[in-house]
């Protein structure tokens, strides 16, 4: 049982964090692992959507999230945060993007800043699982097919039925009116108004 480190305050991540990190097989050890992940984080911030192996994407995701959340928390006047950005973003123009584009974009977000999808792997090919990692609010078209117009979606079935019923009522209404109009010359105006009322209710 160890004490929690209290020297730093970090915001809670909105993604699921594994209890242990993946070592991402590397001859240079933990330092090499970070070098590898730096490339991924840089690419993510640059392209906003990348496709890569699942393990590496999942590891890089936490670092990208924390980088953005630190940038939001401390701003660009905070020296340690700037050092972090300098370390994690290999292309230095992306430091500007982080503080001037991503921080305003994610300022009021209640959800995670990144999204990860499982991607199909090529067959035959490497066995490793693949995934797509993207920043939320990116300019690309969405990856998930838009299912809202699916005919078999329960909401759409119900809406269809409601529409049909509405139309049926309208037609019945119209027919009633027509009947009244054809019988009107024979009867007085008061009686005709009585026959319409029940349909209106």
């Amino acid at each position, binding site marked *: *049982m*160890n*004490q*929690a*480190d*209290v020297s*730093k*305050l*970090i*915001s*809670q*991540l909105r993604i699921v*964090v594994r*209890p242990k*990190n993946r070592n991402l097989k590397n001859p240079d050890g*933990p*330092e090499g692992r*970070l070098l590898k992940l730096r490339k991924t984080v840089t690419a993510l911030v640059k392209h906003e959507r990348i496709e890569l192996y699942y393990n590496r994407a999942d*590891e890089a995701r*936490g*670092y990208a999230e*924390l*980088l953005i959340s*630190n940038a939001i928390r401390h701003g660009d006047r905070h020296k340690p945060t700037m050092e*972090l950005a300098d*370390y*994690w973003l290999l292309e230095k123009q992306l430091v500007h993007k982080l503080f001037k584009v991503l921080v305003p974009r994610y300022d*009021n977000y209640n959800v995670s800043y990144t999204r990860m999808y499982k991607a199909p792997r090529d067959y035959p090919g490497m066995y490793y699982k693949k995934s797509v990692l993207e920043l939320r609010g990116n300019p690309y078209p969405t990856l998930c097919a838009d299912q809202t117009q699916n005919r078999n979606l329960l909401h759409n079935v119900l809406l269809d039925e409601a529409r049909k019923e509405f139309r049926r009522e309208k037609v019945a209404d119209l027919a009633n009116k027509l009947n009244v109009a054809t019988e009107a010359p024979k009867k007085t105006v008061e009686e005709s108004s009585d026959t319409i009322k029940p349909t209106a209710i």
Partner: protein
Amino acid sequence: MNVNGFCRIVSKKLPQQFAYKRIVTFSTKPAQQQQEATVSTPTLPNNNTPAARKPIVPGHYRFVYPEFLPDPKVQWRNTVREKLERLDMLARRGQVDLPEFYVGSILAVTSSDPHAAGKTSRFVGICIHRERCGLRARFILRNVIDHQGMEVLYELYDPTIQKVEVLRLEKRLDDSLFYLRDALPEFSTFDENMEAEHLEEGAPVPVNDIKVVLRPRPWLERWERQNLLGVANIEQYIKDKHRKSAAKVQKPWEKYDLMKQYRATIPEEEQKEIFAEVHTELHTLELQRKRNKRKRSFIKPKQLA
């Protein structure tokens, strides 16, 4: 049988404690300053978000009561156990005064000891280490008595502890002072009859930047590898080969390893929740301590003639 006993204790204790806490854990009103700000600039957005509210739990609580934060290791987390432990800790704090102290502070601990002459023993020493959390929180005191280095490990919530006095409240440059074991004895020698030094209220805890002098090798640990700030003469005793091996084990990339830091800390939102839960009782205990201190500081003058 054990389980039954535990359940009985819990069922007795829980309802009243929780009921008490649910009422006064955190403020639901926005802070006054915020209100003023919104009045002067009515276009300010997000008036009602939780971020706009000023928290009532002071920010230094995580330094003063680090043992209230659970172990960050996910496999060992158990929210129910943590909550019960916090209740027990508060109950114990109601019985005995456990003041704020840090590594480097000088303490006097009085504890029951069946083998001591008066059945109690008092040990004065410098706190060289604090570790563990919850009810298992513990610290090590060190002193040199009759030219012999002595260390006593106390559990903070041990029921045999009768009194904890802070004789000098200060911090040192390092997080743990195990190197005092290899330092000259005068750096860990403290008078047993030392008077308590009172700090002004609200003053920041002073950091003692004393640099201790190590005695020559062999040492208990390889201090040259630990980047110690509070040691004066480490260069005097190490050779090139030590320097090389020390450089080899350095991990300069760890300060950039954000996920490692994240896994070693409790996130801010969770800390707020925990301290909001225990804040009221800790605060009342603090006020009580202040009152007692004021009482003690007034000594009735004696009639001498």
